[in-house]
């Protein structure tokens, strides 16, 4: 979708696709094996993988369309979890007083929806207040400048949250207070199952949007050639607002949905940020499709590391793995181009 191809790309694509399919094939195989022997690992992988797909997809989108490496992306996960907590907690209290099946079923959704909206709006604000003035001043060193800018935003948001709301963990035990489902002899918590479904639906809608709608096409056009897009009458500023809004909205949705797994506290966004970046670098910068697929692979990697080696090694081993991959395939698993300079 948003990956760039050179004219001599056709035979190259064939070669890469083979590599890509082999990788995906291996990952699927591993998942099946793991699923049979350790079904709970597979469940965890799919649940988190779906949400990391949203995070990584959003990050890849912003990088692909606006050429911005968003280092504050994790903080939108944090904002999402914060908003969801704030909205869900009173609902939860209400549920304790007046248990009603309808409320029990629909209760978690307002929090998720509002969180997504808040994230999206803040994303748009960020574009208008920060990136637009920067764009007006200069496009020089754009990637590095925006990288640092977002690093600054990240620091402000994390410490701002700490100052305003304190360091406590604000979490919930579960969203849906129902007994776990029995699927093929495996006990799956409803929260995890629904989170996976939400992720799948969101990914599907997002794909359709990018592929078949006017705005989605415009976004892809901007990511491939800004000048060409302008010549076609596309208002770049509007597309940028849309892009950042979507990206941050997705991150916030992920944070809100995973509230039962990741309680809300100031630096809760650090791990999701790391994972999103990890996926994006592994899959190839700016490649949204690759990011979505790669997210599941990375989730698998992460879950396996946690289960078999230990939580502490969750940063160490994946780093070694990615260095290894980049040695042989500098453009990433699914990426098809490498440039030796900062700017495109």
């Amino acid at each position, binding site marked *: 979708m948003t990956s*760039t191809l050179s*004219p001599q790309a056709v035979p190259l694509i064939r070669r890469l696709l083979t590599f890509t399919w082999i990788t995906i094939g291996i990952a699927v195989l591993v998942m099946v094996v793991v699923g049979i022997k350790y079904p709970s690992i597979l469940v965890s992988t799919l649940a988190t993988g779906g949400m990391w797909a949203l995070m990584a997809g959003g990050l890849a989108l912003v990088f692909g369309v606006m050429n911005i490496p968003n280092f504050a992306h994790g903080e939108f996960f944090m904002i999402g979890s914060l908003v969801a907590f704030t909205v869900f907690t009173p609902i939860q209290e209400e549920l304790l007083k007046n248990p009603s099946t309808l409320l029990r079923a629909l209760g978690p959704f307002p929090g998720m929806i509002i969180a997504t909206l808040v994230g999206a709006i803040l994303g748009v604000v960020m574009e208008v207040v920060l990136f637009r003035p920067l764009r007006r001043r200069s496009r020089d060193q754009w990637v590095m400048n925006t990288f640092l800018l977002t690093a600054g935003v990240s620091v402000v948001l994390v410490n701002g949250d700490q100052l305003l709301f304190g360091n406590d963990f604000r979490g919930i035990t579960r969203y849906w207070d129902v007994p776990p489902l029995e699927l093929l002899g495996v006990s799956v918590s409803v929260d995890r199952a629904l989170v996976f479904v939400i992720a799948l639906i969101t990914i599907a809608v997002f794909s359709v949007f990018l592929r078949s709608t006017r705005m989605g*096409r*415009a976004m*892809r056009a901007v990511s491939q050639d800004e*000048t060409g897009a302008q*010549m*076609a*009458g596309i208002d*770049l500023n509007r597309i940028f607002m849309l892009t950042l809004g979507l990206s941050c909205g997705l991150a916030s949705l992920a944070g809100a949905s995973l509230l039962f797994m990741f309680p809300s506290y100031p630096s809760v966004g650090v791990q999701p940020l790391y994972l999103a970046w990890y996926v994006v670098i592994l899959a190839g910068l700016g490649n949204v499709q690759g990011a979505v697929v790669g997210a599941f692979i990375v989730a698998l990697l992460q879950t396996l590391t946690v289960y078999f080696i230990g939580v502490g090694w969750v940063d160490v081993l994946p780093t070694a793995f990615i260095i290894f991959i980049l040695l042989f395939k500098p453009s990433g698993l699914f990426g098809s181009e490498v440039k030796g300079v900062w700017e495109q």
Partner: protein
Amino acid sequence: MLELTDLESGYELLQVLWGVNLRVEEGEFVALLGPNGAGKTTTLRTIAGLVKPIRGTVAFRGRSINGVAAHEVSRMGIGYVSENLNLFPAMSVYENLLVGAYAVRDRAQQLATMELVFELFPRLQERRNQLAGTLSGGERKMLAIGRGLMPSPALLLVDEPSLGLAPIPTLAAFEALKRLRERGVTILLVEQNVNTTLRLVDRAYVLEQGRVVLEGTGEQLLGNPHVQEAYLGI
């Protein structure tokens, strides 16, 4: 329709145009000629809104469009086919054309214009679903022109359509422009291929070092000694 008055334009560190006066009437086919670096592309880019003028005016249909954003200029009815085409390489021919029609709200009109483009360039219809990045040089030029036509512009700015093309696709490109002209599209063409161009157009300007040095009809300029010496090698 289009009038440039004492236009001075350029980039942050380099001013390129030093007072360009130029006029294109409705329905005309005008060329802008000159050596490399004279400022022909800068002139088109300034009209299209990609470069902001330093001094002077660009007027379209009587109103100044100085500083109007590029996408707005496009919506006003000025199409621009750039020198490096600016196609969307990872999108198909069909999608490139569709995006070209971004500002066209009427679905039926979009389809009608696309039919027109395919009629002009049957090769593009054959390669409808092929990715733009994998097309040949000539096909990409055709696609660029086709995409520029999708919003049915009143004025089309075309920058060096024959650049880098072999003789056959070059002829095809000029043929296409001729047919467009017959359909009533006003065209401002920048070209290096002076001979063919002068035989095709109504009028032409010669730009040298950011200033217009000659102006006249195609025949007049073909017979002009300076043009003959500098550009026709006579």
